[in-house]
């Protein structure tokens, strides 16, 4: 699916390239990211923050799944909630606690990890395909390819890839979406570990239906928005919340455009410039050159 879309992008880019950088606004951004019949469907997660109790079982399962170093503070400690955490090279999931304006007694817990975008910015930014979108949904990292330029970190709208700054042979680290498990049809380690069903694994299309159903059925419980349904063109991991998403640490100003689209106009102009520019320059050169003309010592064009 990802590959089909990307190939389509190339073709659309080449065709749209005639419009050059500014004008190449492809029409496909209007499509919702859903699979056509017969192709592999994206899997994803629906994270219902209204169900999350902040037990951090997902963090622990992730730590084991990816053989990450044991943290200094145990997974049962609540001390970590004192301040907002970001993912680190050693923690691909972090659960944060936010005050709940609806019900001060019941704080909101929201986990943070790679969103597994439908069209990931990191994968399109990577010049050696170290970041790659699998047809099943996970955005994986090929560490043998990575050169450590950290452009994925610049490009990720969610600031998820993390870099091992204190290593002489560093890697970029982030949630890779349990590709081995997903390929076998199993759910991700974090979804499996969740005791409350706050993290639900499934086909992205089904998850959106489920999310909509929950919002329709309990309008008081949910803020009427599925975060990730359309953000940055859609993400594989999506969220439900009781409160507006900016209140629980989400950026709501990212737009609904696929991130690769930001550069596709420019990139589609590249082959044109590479072909047309030399032709024009040769033309100029030929035009001005007096080779073969009589005399050949005439005044040249000066400004």
């Amino acid at each position, binding site marked *: 699916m990802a590959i089909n879309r990307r190939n389509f992008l190339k073709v659309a880019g080449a065709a749209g390239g005639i419009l050059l950088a500014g004008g190449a606004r492809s029409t496909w951004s209007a499509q919702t990211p859903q699979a056509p019949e017969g192709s592999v469907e994206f899997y994803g997660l629906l994270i219902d923050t209204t169900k999350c109790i902040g037990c951090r079982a997902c963090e622990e399962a992730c730590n084991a799944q990816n053989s990450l170093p044991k943290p200094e503070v145990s997974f049962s400690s609540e001390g970590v909630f004192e301040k907002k955490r970001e993912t680190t090279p050693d923690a691909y999931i972090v659960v944060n606690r936010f005050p709940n304006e609806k019900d001060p007694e019941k704080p909101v817990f929201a986990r943070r990890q790679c969103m597994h975008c439908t069209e990931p910015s990191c994968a399109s930014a990577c010049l050696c395909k170290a970041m790659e979108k699998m047809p099943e949904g996970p955005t994986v990292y090929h560490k043998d390819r*990575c*050169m450590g330029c950290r452009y994925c970190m610049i490009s990720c709208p969610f600031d998820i890839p993390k870099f091992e700054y204190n290593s002489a042979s560093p890697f970029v680290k982030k949630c890779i979406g349990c590709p081995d498990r997903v390929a076998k049809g199993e759910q991700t380690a974090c979804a499996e570990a969740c005791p409350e069903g706050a993290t639900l694994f499934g086909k992205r299309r089904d998850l959106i239906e489920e999310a909509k159903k929950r919002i329709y059925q309990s309008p008081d419980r949910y803020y009427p928005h599925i975060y990730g349904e359309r953000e940055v063109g859609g993400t594989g991991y999506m969220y439900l919340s009781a409160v507006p998403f900016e209140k629980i640490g989400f950026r709501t100003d990212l737009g609904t455009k696929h991130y690769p689209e930001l550069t596709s106009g*420019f990139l589609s102009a590249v082959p044109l410039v590479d072909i047309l520019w030399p032709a024009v*320059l040769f033309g100029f050169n030929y035009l001005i050159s007096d080779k073969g003309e009589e005399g050949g010592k005439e005044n040249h064009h000066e400004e």
Partner: protein
Amino acid sequence: MKSNVTPMPISGTPAAPDTGTLKGFLRFLWQELKPRGKLLTPFNVITGIIILGGIILIGIRLVKGLGAVTNLSQEYPWGIWIGFDVVTGVAFAGGAYILTFAVHILKIKKYEPIVRATVLNGFLAYVFYSGALLLDLGRPWNVVNPIIGNAFGYGSVLFLVAWHFLLYTLCLFVEVSPAIAEWLKWVKARRIIQKMTTATVILGVTLSTLHQAGLGGLFLTAPSKIHPLWYSSNIPVLFFISSMFAGFSLIIIESMFTHKIFSDRLDASHRASHDKILLGLAKGSASVMAAYLFLKVIDLTHGHQLGLLLTPMGLWYLVEVAGFTLLPLVLYVVAIRRQSVRLVQITAFFTAFGVVLNRMNISVIAFKWYEAVRYYPSWMEIWVTLAVISMELWVFQWVINRMPILGAHPDFKTEEETLNNLDGAEVVRWKVSAS
């Protein structure tokens, strides 16, 4: 060595170096590698210390990782090694493509005397900045991955930048090589290279266009992180245009220094035409800056960002755009009307500073301007940057003192003459050494 035979200063070289054979070549190289003139000049001592310190810091970086010497963080993955060394440095190397375009494509002969120095500058800039880039890469040994093709990330702007960077550096090498061939007295090689000039220049201009624009294009993927006053879908075009006046201003600045320091290496025609050249460069710079500012205004009004101008970041934006782009433009125009070379030179500094501000703003200062803890470079990052610049200056100095950079005419016709003279000189020297 009788200089009426050869118009090029190839002084200092031993008579008739036999560079055709490997042994002779190595002997010649060994002779040339030895330092010349006073060693313990203040410049050499200061830059020497900086380079030594830089090498130590680079060692620490390689052993302990980037975190040991840089202030880079998970929030700020790119610091001044990218923002200044690469993104800013490459803009200033733009003089090479714009000047080769003027001289070899448009055949504006006026600028011939400064082509070689500018191209050399561009070439060294590229070599040293790509060196600096390797320091910043976490896994530099994988830098060949997008080149040898085990993982082509076609969809990446960085892929485009990397390829154009590499190919353009090769082009610059070809453009510099006539001077190298003359230095080595490789007449045949010189002739072959000369035939490649036009094609190389055309390729070089093309690659530069996309490479300069591509560096800006890198930041297109960070719309939510770059301050809206600086983020624009026009960044590639803006980078390309500003690389022209960055190039112009650096040529003017660089010529100020070379004229002072290497005055003995200058030939008469270079000296005579210098004022005219500088005023011409000022004209070029002013027109490009006008176009750039026009685009900037369009961006500002189309994005409905006028209200942002009164915020602190907005004032900072005005410092860059009004203070160091618009003002230099006005100064250039005044300088051109008054025919004041002095004012052109002063303005070039303003212009260059404006370009530095612009590149630093986009890559570092206006990048995640909202974060509570901001990135600022560590002293070690600054030191290594200075060391890279110092090394470049050393090589520049070494080349200028040995190769015909400031005193040659890379024009087809005079080149032919030079070659003939070179042949003549060879004969004379051969005779001298034979007798």
